C-alpha cells in the first residue's frame, strides 16, 4: 500500500486556508489525512457552485489538472451539479470537488441532493479542525454525523469500519435532538429507530432494517 506525501496534503490545505476560498473537507475518517491517504484515493471537498472558477484557479496554481470524473455519466437529479476531478501529476493527490451534499437514490443510483436545510447547515456550522500539522474546515459534528450515516446507507449500502469508527467518535459530541431533526429530513419516520440502532452500535442490521421498514 503506497501513500501520497503527507507534506503535499498539508501544503494543499495550507494554500486553501490562505486563500479567501471557503471550502469544507467532507470527511477525514480515522484521520487518514494528512499522512495515511492511499495513492488513488481522493479527497472530497465541498465548495459553493458560484465560487467554482475561483477555486479551480487556486487548484490550477497548485499544479492540479482537471480529469474526466468517473461519475460524469451518472444521473444527477434536482439540481445536483456534476462533480469535478482534479489531480496533481507531481504528488498524485486527487481532489474530488462537490457542490452539494448529495447521495445515491435507491431507485437507480441517481445522485440527489440532501434537504436544503442540511445544505445550509453545512456552511453555517463548518468548523476548523486540527489534524496534527494540518488544519481543515470540516462539517459541524451533527452534519458530519448525518453525512456519514447517509453515505453508508445510500452510497455504500453498508457501514464500513472506518465509518463506524468515526460515527462512534462523534456520538458523545453531537446534540441528539439536532441530529434527529436532520435525520428526519432524509430517513423520515425511520429516523428514531435508525438513531437508536446507531447508539447501540447495531450497524450490521441498519441497511436491511431500513430496506424492509414498513411502519409508515
Amino acid at each position, binding site marked *: 500500500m503506497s501513500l501520497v506525501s503527507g507534506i503535499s496534503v498539508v501544503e494543499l490545505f495550507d494554500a486553501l486556508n490562505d486563500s479567501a476560498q471557503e471550502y469544507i473537507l467532507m470527511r477525514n475518517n480515522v484521520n487518514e489525512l494528512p499522512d495515511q491517504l492511499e495513492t488513488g484515493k481522493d479527497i472530497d471537498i465541498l465548495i459553493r457552485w458560484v465560487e467554482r472558477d475561483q477555486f479551480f484557479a487556486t487548484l490550477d496554481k497548485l499544479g492540479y489538472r482537471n480529469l*474526466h470524473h468517473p461519475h*460524469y*455519466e*451518472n444521473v444527477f*437529479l*434536482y439540481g445536483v451539479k456534476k462533480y469535478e476531478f482534479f489531480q496533481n501529476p507531481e504528488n498524485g493527490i486527487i481532489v474530488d470537488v462537490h457542490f452539494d451534499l448529495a*447521495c*445515491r*437514490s*435507491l*431507485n437507480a443510483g441517481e445522485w*440527489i*441532493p440532501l*434537504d436544503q436545510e442540511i445544505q445550509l447547515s453545512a456552511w453555517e456550522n463548518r468548523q476548523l479542525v486540527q489534524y496534527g500539522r494540518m488544519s481543515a474546515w470540516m462539517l459541524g459534528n451533527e452534519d458530519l454525523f448525518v453525512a456519514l450515516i*447517509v453515505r453508508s446507507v*445510500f452510497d455504500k449500502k453498508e457501514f464500513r469500519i472506518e465509518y463506524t469508527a468515526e460515527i462512534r467518535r462523534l456520538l458523545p459530541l453531537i446534540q441528539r435532538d439536532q441530529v434527529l431533526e436532520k435525520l428526519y*429530513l*432524509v*430517513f*423520515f*419516520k*425511520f*429516523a428514531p429507530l435508525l438513531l437508536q440502532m446507531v447508539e447501540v452500535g447495531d450497524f450490521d442490521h441498519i441497511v436491511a432494517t*431500513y*430496506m424492509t*421498514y*414498513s*411502519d*409508515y
Partner: protein
Amino acid sequence: MSNPGLILLAQTQCLDGFVKRFQIEDNIGEAIHIHIDNLRIDLTVAELLEFAELIGTSIDNLRLLGKYSVRHFDPMFLLNCAPYLPHLSQISIEKITLKDLEFIVHKQEGGAFFHEICSVTKTPAYRFLAHQDLAFLDYAQDRYCQQDNVTRINQLKKSIEHNGYPCNEQYVILFNNQNYVRDGQHRAAVLALLYGVDKEIEVMRFHFKENIGDFYPVQLLEQLNELGAVQQGKRAWLMRQVRRIKRILSYLSGRLTKKDFSSV
C-alpha cells in the same frame, strides 16, 4: 424535499391512452406514492396493501380471469401479462405431455439479449435438479422477489411431492395455440424430474383474441444465418447494427465513456 430511499414498485405508461403515466413508488419512511399523470395519491403501507387487496377482489368480481382468482396466480406473472388481459377470451385446462412443452431461456451474449427455446430437460432448473448444473444459481429470474433460485426450486419440489400437482389451481401456463411455457417453468422441471418427460400433465391455456400475447423469440443472428434466413450482405449489415447496439448498451451501463462512445 426529495427522499433518496425511493423504490419504484411498478410503472406503466401509454402515451396515447386516457391515463398516460401510472407509477407506484415506495418512499421509505415517508409514504407510498401513486402517480396518475399529474395526480399524486399518498398512502401508508397498510393502506397500499388494503388497496391492493381491494383491486384483487374487484378483478375477481369482474371475472377478468374467468372462474379463477388473482390469488391463484403469481403476481409477477399477472403483472407481465396485464397488457393482454383485456383481450382474454377464455381460460381452458387441457392435458399435454411434458416433452411437448417448449421452454424460453433468457440468454445474454455481451450486450445482446436473446431467447433460446429448449425442452424441459435443457432448462436451467431441470439441469440443476438432475445434474447439479450450477449455472442455475446465476440464472436471472424476475419472480419471487427476495428468494434465491435454489431455495425457490427446493421449496417447490417439496410442495409438489407433498401436495401433488396442480395445487391450489396453480398450473403451468401457455398462451393461445403456442406450447411455450409462459409461467411454471420450475414446476414443469420438478414434474419432469419426478415423473419423466412422458408424463401427461394438466396445463392452463389463456386464449386471447387475435392471438394477442403470442411469443416471438429473439434469436442470435448466427442462429438465423444457420437457418439460411439472412443473406450474406444483409448479415454483415445486421452484425454491424448488433455491434452498434452492444456499444450503446455498454455506454448506457457506464462501461464506456462518452469519448469511447463518440467513435461508434
